[in-house]
């Protein structure tokens, strides 16, 4: 099935710093979502972005589907940004991963005041 790799695995920032999280995937996809899992375990949708660029406040994401990667940018980080960031993808027709949202291992972000 499709492989999803996220980097870095851990990231520690001071409040106000910027960061870039990366997601590499091993096959073409027709769905890519970025999630934030807060310390209480809730998975919150950040972006649905199988291709292109989107921005939402201090967050933005870019997916280059032809090169099989996506980037999540966090600017002016705040302590409330702490948690785990997951990238998840769905493959188009064919293969064992078809139709399934396959998650990466996540990036653990800690923002200190």
């Amino acid at each position, binding site marked *: 099935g499709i492989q*999803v790799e996220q980097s870095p695995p851990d990231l520690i920032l001071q409040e106000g710093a910027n960061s870039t999280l990366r997601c590499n995937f091993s096959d073409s996809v027709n*769905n890519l979502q970025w999630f934030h899992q807060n310390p209480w375990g*809730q*998975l*919150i*949708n950040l972006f649905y972005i199988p291709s292109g660029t989107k921005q939402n406040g201090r967050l933005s994401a870019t997916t280059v589907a032809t090169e099989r990667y996506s980037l999540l940018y966090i600017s002016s980080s705040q302590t409330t940004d702490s948690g785990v960031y997951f990238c*998840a993808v769905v493959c188009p027709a064919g293969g064992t991963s078809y139709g*399934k949202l*396959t998650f990466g291992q996540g990036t653990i972000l800690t923002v200190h005041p």
Partner: protein
Amino acid sequence: EAGVAQSPRYKIIEKRQSVAFWCNPISGHATLYWYQQILGQGPKLLIQFQNNGVVDDSQLPKDRFSAERLKGVDSTLKIQPAKLEDSAVYLCASSLPGGLAGVETQYFGPGTRLLVL
């Protein structure tokens, strides 16, 4: 708009006991998913329903896990008997039915944390 609801939020049981989790999806969402998230890992799909029919249960351990969605709305996931390795967070998600499988945004509930002793 109300989100995906799950209960209970926490459950502690002993191995070999049975447990059930409940999920109510977002109104109008025909597709419902159950995921298992083991500590330190990303969620893994257990089963996917479209209305009350199973679309994919290839990763569901059918010897001990079962799930149903009888009226195409609420769903129940059951484990019987539980093992120590079933300790995890069980997440329910829902989405609108896309023309192509998996292209719709999935929205997750708060999850049920299960600890098997």
